[in-house]
């Protein structure tokens, strides 16, 4: 009998793709965080149209419980890294799989609130913020589908075990 290690069966592309998306999210959130605190960013009014990053990033909705939304977004993406490491994707532990999905879903919930704030309350759109929202959504979609394709299995093949059994039976 050969001892086996349970594997998640996740696609090999899952970890690198998700880490790349996470890095993109960190980049965008970092820029927005710097812009939030940098008073030397030009304060301008858009000539008509709905695109006005300053209006969004300086609105009352740009803070949640006194914490800048940009900073929360940065913390979210940094916290995403451990969930998408190769060792985490290889693990068959269901707590890691469902924890990763729930963490991603929490980000989607926050995106829904921010989209609501832009579309319904502020009625202005910040393109940089929209980039973060899209990155969060794409990351969630990739995570969901990669998790769906992951069928747990044992690392050692059962056929090897069966061949040994068959040889013993003949002897």
């Amino acid at each position: 009998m050969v001892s086996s290690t349970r594997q998640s069966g996740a696609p090999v592309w899952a970890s690198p793709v998700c880490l790349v998306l996470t890095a993109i999210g960190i980049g965008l959130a970092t820029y927005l965080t710097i812009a939030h605190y940098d008073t030397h960013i030009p304060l301008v009014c858009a000539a008509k149209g709905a695109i006005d990053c300053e209006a969004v990033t300086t609105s009352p909705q740009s803070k949640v419980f006194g914490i800048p939304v940009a900073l929360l977004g940065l913390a979210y993406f940094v916290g995403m890294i451990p969930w998408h490491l190769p060792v985490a994707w290889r693990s068959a532990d269901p707590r890691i799989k469902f924890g990763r999905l729930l963490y991603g879903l929490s980000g989607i919930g926050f995106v829904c609130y921010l989209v609501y704030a832009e579309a319904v309350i502020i009625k202005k759109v910040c393109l940089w913020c929209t980039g973060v929202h899209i990155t969060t959504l794409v990351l969630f979609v990739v995570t969901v589908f990669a998790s769906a394709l992951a069928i747990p299995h044992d690392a050692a093949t059962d056929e090897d075990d069966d061949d040994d059994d068959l040889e013993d039976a003949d002897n």
Partner: protein
Amino acid sequence: MADGRDDKGRTSPKYGAKKAATERIAAQRAAQQRTDRKHNLLMAGGGVLAVVLVIGGIVFAGLSSKKSSTTIHPVVAASDTVTNAINAAVPLTSTAPDLSTVTGPPKPLTGAALTGTSGKPEVLYIGAEFCPYCAVTRWPLAIALSRFGTLSNLQTTYSAANDTGPNTPTLDFGHATYKSDYIDFTGIEYEDGAKKVIATLTPQQASLFQSVGGGFFPFIDLGGKWVQSGASYPTATLAGLTPDAVAAQLTNSSSKIGSTIQASANVFTAAICSMDGDKPASVCTATGVAAATTALVALAK
């Protein structure tokens, strides 16, 4: 032998049966995995679709909801308090105020000089009555312009109530006239308090507004040598005040409002000096303006 054959190459019946069973089990497992994956993918697709529908519904709700009614502030003739205060602030060039309060100074430009209808270097202002960033910038610009000529027919109003820095008290250049021996000034309020277009730009003005200013208010082209894009200082500085209350602080160098506006006025004055050959000398060599010139030159490097 390991492959189930004897030394004469024959396979035992027992081995053959077990191998067939093993292959059958492996095929069943593979089929089950394919079924599980298919089931999981359908669930995943349904979940993602639900998320996309929720977000799309929120965007649709935002696009279809009526905009909240906006209070459009009236534009009225500037009071004597305002015009007298601006004139009183004109000579305040001898001291160098704290230039760090000017969070949005002009940026240097390269290219052709900008001249007005009389052939003199031109200050072109394009703003909007709703715009809070225009609101704070008009005060120091008016003081600076008054150092080189006479600014008349000023009006006052407030920026939009439903925007950042709501109800910021301000001047209005829409009907202003200007006379100077040194420069030309064109002040255009392109949109009113409800973002309705109320002025027409010439092709050159429209081109500069888009190519140099990016289409953002306020846009101030200072002789083709400097461009002011955006607020010169934060809107919070004038929060909750009236035009007369702001005017009362213009000559008070000890107040945050007075020192901030005077600093910004000196920066605009320095920019105008650099575009008109430092005339008049009494203005361009004053201590406060010289300090602002040094700061602008450092910015240009």
